[in-house]
Structures are given as structure tokens and as C-alpha cells.
């Protein structure tokens, strides 16, 4: 499936795509920035509240970020839907994510899909390889 880049201006764009996650009250879609440099997908903690899940109930890990700092992340296994494929994915929730959007990292996603970025044509293609 092909997703156009999120684009504000001619030279201001990013591979942000919609990702469906199954919460306590059903499916809800969030935006996620495809970050091939991220080991894990990380969502802001308020998305966990919207999904009706208690973030601190699950395993806590620390991820190192670009400046060497540590990010406290609670890893949940949740059902997700991307590119018409439903599967269980590990999603991390963090109180410390200092950016507005969520990150879609390699774990669980790059194992299911081949993801090709086309900055020239401003789209990202997500191929199911399962």
C-alpha cells in the first residue's frame, strides 16, 4: 500500500502514516512517523489512556536516544492494523516522548513489511511480506 508523505510545504514533508490500534473500546487510528532508526515504536503516554490501557502494567525498558539520554518506555503487545494486515505488535508508551507525533520503529513492523521511502516522489510504500 502506498501512503503519500505528510506535507506542509514543497520541501517540508515526512513519512507519517495512519496506524490502527485495538483498544478497550475498539479500533482507533493514530498518526505514526516511520522511523527506521528506532528499534521500537514509541507512542506518547496519552495515547495509552485513549486506548484504555494502563501503561505501567507492562514491562519497563530503557531506550537510548540520540543525545545519549535514556527514555523510559512501557512495552505492550497490542493488535494493530497496517496496510490491511492485522497482527500483534509491540508498542512502547513513554511519558518522556518529547515530540507531538508517535514513532513507528522496526520491532514488529519491519518484520512484517518491506518499507520503501521515495522522497523524490513523496510517498512511502509498505509491502506485506508475511
Amino acid at each position, binding site marked *: 500500500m502506498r501512503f503519500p508523505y505528510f506535507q506542509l510545504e514543497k520541501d517540508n514533508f515526512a513519512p507519517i502514516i495512519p496506524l490502527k490500534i485495538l483498544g478497550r473500546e475498539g479500533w482507533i487510528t493514530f498518526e505514526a512517523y516511520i522511523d527506521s532508526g528506532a528499534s521500537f515504536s514509541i507512542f506518547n503516554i496519552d495515547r495509552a489512556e*485513549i486506548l484504555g490501557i494502563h501503561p505501567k502494567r507492562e514491562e519497563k525498558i530503557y531506550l537510548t536516544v540520540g543525545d545519549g539520554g535514556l527514555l523510559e518506555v512501557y512495552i505492550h503487545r497490542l493488535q494493530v492494523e497496517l496496510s490491511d494486515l492485522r497482527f500483534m505488535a509491540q508498542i512502547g508508551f513513554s511519558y518522556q516522548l518529547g515530540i507531538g*507525533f508517535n514513532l513507528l520503529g522496526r520491532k514488529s513492523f519491519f518484520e512484517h513489511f518491506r518499507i520503501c521511502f521515495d522522497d523524490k516522489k513523496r510517498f512511502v510504500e509498505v509491502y506485506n511480506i508475511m
Partner: protein
Amino acid sequence: MKNILFTQKVKKYQGKYIAVVKNKVVSSGKDAREAFSLAKKILGRKKVEGVYYIPQKKDLFTALCVFHISN
């Protein structure tokens, strides 16, 4: 139908969060929780289908990376 995230309609919400039903903005807020709660009040029993952050210009110049896992 093209997801509203990829349309020009969301540009006015840069830096804010929006709640969406049937590809239409129902509410917006300074954080995801606020946009979601407001949408729930407006919608009653109807479900919120999506909550999106609409990035602003400065958000899109990033050097994202998260690596090395430790317990």
C-alpha cells in the same frame, strides 16, 4: 477515500491534535487527551475513529533515532 491526514484540510491545525470521525475533524486540542475528550462529549455514543497530531514546520526537521535496549 484519502485519509484526512494527507489533505490540506488539516493544515490549520498545525501543532495541535485533532479527533476525527468519518474523515472529518470533530474537535481539536493542545494535547491528544483534550481533543479526544472533547470529541467524546460532542459525539455521545458515537466512536472517535482517529486522533492525530498535525505537525508544524519545526517538527518535520528531525533527527530521530532510538536504539540500544536495556532493562
